[in-house]
């Protein structure tokens, strides 16, 4: 593996969630060659990153194949699915 890619991976690992963001970007764009992976690593490093648990989890879910849904669609689809809450017997 090229030294450049190793350096970029080390740089990505410095901010929590950035490494997962790069992995997801590589997956989405089917980047298999080192040149493609280097290009995407440089792209991700140039973008802002909050380094938060929420951001890392979003990318991690993306890597697991969990799709993104628009809020209005999510709210629209949920209403019928909630089972009635059982009441405790006294």
């Amino acid at each position: 593996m090229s030294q450049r890619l190793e350096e970029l991976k080390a740089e990505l690992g410095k901010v929590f969630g950035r490494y997962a963001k790069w992995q997801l970007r590589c997956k989405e764009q089917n980047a298999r060659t080192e040149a493609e992976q280097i290009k995407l690593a440089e792209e991700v490093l140039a973008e802002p990153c909050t380094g938060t648990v929420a951001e890392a989890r979003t990318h991690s879910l993306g890597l697991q194949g969990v799709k993104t849904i628009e809020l209005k669609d999510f709210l629209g689809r949920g209403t019928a699915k909630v089972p009635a809450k059982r009441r405790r017997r006294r």
Partner: protein
Amino acid sequence: MRTSFKDFAARRELAQATGVAGAHGGAFNEMAARRSFKRSMGKFEPQAIDKAVAIITAWRGELLDPAGQPYLEAVRRRLNDKANRNLIANIQRRGLSYYPVVGAGQEANDQGVFSVNKENSLVVQPIGNLNEMDFIESIQQLLFNPTGEVGPGPFPHTQWGVTIKLPSNPQAFLLYHSGNAPTGPQDYTQVKPLGDTAESRLPHDWYYTQMKYGPRAEPAMMDPLDQPGDVGNPCPGTGKPGARLPGNRFTIKNRSQP
């Protein structure tokens, strides 16, 4: 109302930590939940819940000084905690209730080396009845401008996203913004479902919520990455029990199929 000395001490700590006048009043109703692991996990465990709930923070993993360099870890934690105090004031102005927890995550690189992130966070809920959309709008505003800064933003503590569960949907979800940087609260419209239940955290669960108060974590909830000086662990010498030990932990996930 009768309260124990432990409760009084916890309220005093909270008031001191927040530095917000009247914090004890707002926090009073959440006193039981903030010490009770069962009640906290119970906000996400059943499919049907009575009240919307969110877990939010003003913490940022990387904070840069005016020269563009990351602050030292102790300074980063101090600045993030200050931002959380402003977030608490912002939450109170909106008439929402809150209590502190810790949000945590782990990630591994391709060499199997793990990094861990822990953030002082807040469980936020409406007081009384509040329309779900009104609750979401408040959360969207808190995400974009958690510390109540003046100006158009984005701000130093503008957040990526938040965990939410609503009475109208069994799935808890991550709500986050589209694009690389949000331009306002209206950009927080992207959803990734997290799961329809919550369970005690096991070492293979990379993302979890940790209690700040109450009993310390059971050994089964911990892993070799835990460090005594982690965010949220009581410091030694403060008189708090369980110094350097984390609180109980739960993770949001999908119900296993029978």
